[in-house]
């Protein structure tokens, strides 16, 4: 670890070979880039899978050469998607997006990049653990990808992998080798996440530069910090859930199994409970939502303030709401289980705690609105995506109120209404946050600028297609259309009017999904093109206050060639009356008579 941790005030400048610089790097900036590119690749894969099942949902039963080309004759004979593979696609799409893209891709990238840079640290507390964290993540992505090519198919029990479906291969073929790989991949992923989170927490607590009080940290860091704490406290629970499931599958235990006859075979399991798994899973699963969302909100806070040229409104309230959301996220998991047979009284308690989360969330939204009010908005692509995030956070957030209300959840539980809700509030918002972060910090990562015009095109097409996909889903769901259905032909038996509506809306949704996917091609092109051919960046392109923009454009090991910067003020002194410029970096000492925030 010696080469990386540098509490002293001298940067390291030693030559490195290709392998230690680009592959087994212990430099947080390189690791951030590794997380980003791996996360993007998983994102492309996850999106492709979603297009495959959207083709099935939009045009059920029609032959598709695209499906046949990618999935082959086994899984898409004559271009018609196999029923089991449909479930496999849904499952792996969810797993990849939630864990690999929006947890590792988002948090891994920006926590790694920004925690040392914005705090004035030379690197993470442990560069070695940081490297280990990335490579374990990489191995887990490999295992998950490999599981797509297993003969009996990938895991098919939905991303929540509820047993007994996920425990018994007689129940669904994906619960054979595919599920074993899923569990192994997730176990390694969790280890990776824990290493990363521990590192982030220690770095934030110990390695802040002189003057960087906790109340002077940018909101990005606050968000990453709380996210890391959530991860450390909740991921181990998923690990134990996964290990118990693995034991049920391979060692003959029955933690989750009881009184089962499957595939005509009478099993002799007694005393296990599938509800145990659901509790353990959602004990992680709900904090996970905020593990995904908080970094995106942190990124947005920073970008909105910078590009509105205004301080973020209510800095302390923003910190307070991050902490409140973080705390509450641990006592709401039961709202996923209102209708599982859990005691209804307990359900009532979870209604109360869940709806409480709406309060800090509302505070955040109103604070964002007040920040852009009377601002001087500069429309960088990052800013556009941040505003998009606020919109999707509102739109997706309000439907959460219906789902959190157990009485109303009875009708919409496990329907497309839920799919719409979490895709808008968690999928779109988090991915918008990630895009915003990439556009904003690309100059810091690669020393070049991304193309703005392409960024505009990317934003507007993504916003329109994102809403185009997920808004109509609310209506499909409130009609009572269950999720994870291969097709809706059963509706033909009981309500033709609804059947037609579902068919129509599904076509619309699929078309927008395909458009949206193509729009992401523009982003990916822009990203890789700009790495090599983009315009060279200047040191502080967005005229921002935070410390990362005081480092040289060319990366140096240890971040600052000279001594570490000293911080004298909070990061949001934009357009402060009396100042010449509309920004005052954190390293500028307070003028005489000037008040700190």
């Amino acid at each position: 670890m010696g080469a990386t941790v540098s509490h002293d005030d001298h940067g390291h400048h030693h030559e490195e070979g290709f392998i230690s610089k680009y592959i087994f790097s212990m430099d947080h900036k390189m690791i951030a880039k590794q997380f980003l590119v791996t996360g993007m690749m998983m994102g492309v894969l996850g999106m492709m899978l979603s297009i495959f099942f959207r083709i099935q949902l939009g045009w059920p039963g029609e032959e598709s050469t695209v499906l046949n080309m990618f999935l082959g004759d086994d899984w898409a004979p004559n271009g018609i998607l196999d029923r089991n593979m449909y479930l496999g696609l849904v499952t792996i799409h969810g797993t990849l997006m939630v864990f690999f893209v929006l947890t590792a891709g988002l948090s891994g990238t920006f926590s790694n990049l920004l925690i040392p840079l914005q705090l004035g640290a030379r690197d993470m507390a442990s560069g070695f653990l940081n490297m280990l964290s990335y490579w374990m993540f990489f191995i887990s992505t490999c295992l998950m990808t490999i599981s797509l090519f297993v003969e009996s198919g990938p895991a098919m029990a939905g991303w929540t992998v509820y047993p007994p479906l996920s425990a018994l291969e007689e129940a669904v073929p994906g619960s054979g080798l595919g599920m074993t790989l899923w569990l192994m991949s997730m176990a390694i992923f969790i280890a990776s996440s824990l290493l990363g989170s521990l590192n982030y927490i220690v770095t934030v607590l110990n390695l802040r530069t002189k003057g960087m009080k906790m109340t002077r940290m940018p909101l990005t860091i606050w968000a990453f910090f709380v996210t890391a704490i959530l991860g450390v406290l909740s991921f181990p629970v998923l690990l134990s859930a996964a290990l118990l499931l693995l034991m049920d599958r391979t060692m003959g235990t029955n933690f989750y199994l009881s009184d089962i006859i499957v595939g005509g075979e009478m099993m002799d399991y007694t005393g296990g409970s599938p509800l145990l798994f659901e509790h353990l899973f959602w004990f992680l699963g709900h904090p996970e939502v905020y593990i995904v969302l908080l970094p995106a909100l942190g990124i947005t806070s920073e970008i909105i303030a910078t590009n509105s040229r205004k301080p973020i409104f209510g800095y302390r309230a923003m910190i307070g709401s991050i902490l409140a959301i973080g705390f509450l996220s641990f006592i709401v998991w039961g709202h996923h289980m209102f209708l599982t047979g859990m005691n209804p009284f307990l359900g009532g308690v979870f209604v109360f705690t869940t709806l409480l989360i709406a309060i800090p969330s509302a505070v955040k939204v109103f604070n964002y609105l007040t920040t852009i009010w009377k601002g001087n908005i500069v429309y960088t692509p990052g800013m556009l995506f941040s505003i998009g995030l606020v919109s999707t956070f509102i739109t997706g957030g309000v439907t959460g109120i219906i789902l959190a209300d157990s009485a109303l959840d009875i009708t919409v539980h496990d329907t497309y209404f839920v799919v719409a809700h979490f895709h808008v509030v968690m999928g779109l918002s988090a991915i918008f946050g990630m895009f915003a972060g990439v556009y904003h910090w690309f100059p810091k990562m690669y020393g070049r600028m991304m193309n703005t015009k392409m960024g505009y095109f990317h934003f507007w097409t993504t916003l329109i297609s994102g809403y185009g996909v997920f808004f109509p889903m609310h209506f499909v769901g409130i009609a009572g259309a269950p999720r994870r259905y291969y097709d809706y032909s059963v509706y033909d038996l009981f309500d033709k009017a609804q059947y037609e509506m579902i068919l129509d809306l599904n076509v619309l949704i699929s078309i927008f999904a395909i458009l949206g996917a193509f729009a992401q091609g523009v982003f990916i092109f822009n990203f890789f093109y700009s790495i090599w051919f983009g315009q060279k960046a200047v040191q502080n392109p967005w005229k921002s206050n935070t410390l990362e923009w005081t480092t040289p454009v060319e990366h140096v090991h240890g971040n600052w060639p000279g001594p570490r910067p000293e911080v004298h003020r909070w990061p949001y002194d934009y357009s402060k009356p009396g100042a010449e410029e509309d920004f005052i970096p954190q390293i500028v000492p307070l003028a005489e008579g000037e008040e700190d925030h």
Partner: protein
Amino acid sequence: MESKFIILIVIVLGIVAISQLARVYELAAKLKGKKEEDISDSDNRMNARMMFAFMILFFGTVIYFYTEYGRGLLPEAASVHGVEQDWLMNLNIFIITTVFFLTNFLLFFFASKYYKRKGSKAYFFPHDNKLELIWTVIPSIVLAVIIILGLKNWNEVTGAPSEDAEKVELYSKQFSWTARYSGEDNVLGDFNYKLVNDDINNPLGVVTRVTMETQIEALKAKIVDEKAKLNSDSLVFADDIEYKMHKKVERLSRVVRRLEEELASYNDSLDIPALDDKIVRGDLHLKVNQEYEFQFRAEDVIHSAYFPHFRAQMNTVPGMKTRFKFTPTITTKEMREKLQDENFNYVLLCNKICGASHSNMYMLVQVDDEATYDAWIAEQPTFKSTVIDELNK
């Protein structure tokens, strides 16, 4: 194969072409001295106007969807609690729609108004305790209302059923539903998954002395059969199959042992509630205005009993009983007239991922008037006549 090759070439050429265009753009920008980080006034104005245009488009579409699809074309609630729940749902939708329009309007309006242009400046406004208090307190009050109304409804829906609620069991397995009516005594006979046996018409594992004895014999026969296969000289199995067969013998032996223990302490009076139970595999028939208490069970994996028209849902979980109660209020015939749809039916859908045919796991539900229902239920054979009498023959 050829088509794939051509597609690949087109994609590669496309990327090259776009790269060249981008290159031209970069060079032109360089000549003009324009930098990516300097967002021009015209770009700011363009995006600000787009924000406004998007808002109009977005709100217009949302209003169109509300008027066109409303509650997703779901017919009115056909149960007592469903009517109240719909009222609550509409109230909640009204509240969230208001919040949605209000906050999204402010967002896009500010975004379109306060863009950077020549001479514009931002207003330094870091915090204001009064404002923050307002938007903490107001959501809290609204949420308090939502929580109180919601919990009131929830407690009623999940509370104990009245004494004249009729008990019906719904049994789920991949990929079908089976119903069991409790008969005249309104008590469901006991069950034991180890007794499930389709050969003797006992798909739900209803417990009686006879079904227990028969099942023990049947399982013993299976064990003998399996052992014979294993010991046979003419049959050779692959290692893993042979291992599985050994396991199966062990497993079934354990099941038999447990059943024998249970039989030893069995009290014949437990037979009685089971005798008049009626197992129904076709449509589920319900009597209008009759409260029902459903008991749910699952045979293999978790399923979910979802009755969208009655606003009712409950998971079915292997190894435990779950419950839900509701009272249907509109007969199928009346609903067909209301909807002017001769083919309309109530339905029970599976709403928890359960395997390949998840989307085809359903049971149609008929809500009958009293006379029709009574005639129908009288026709259904009892457990005694379909199983016990047959076995005793």
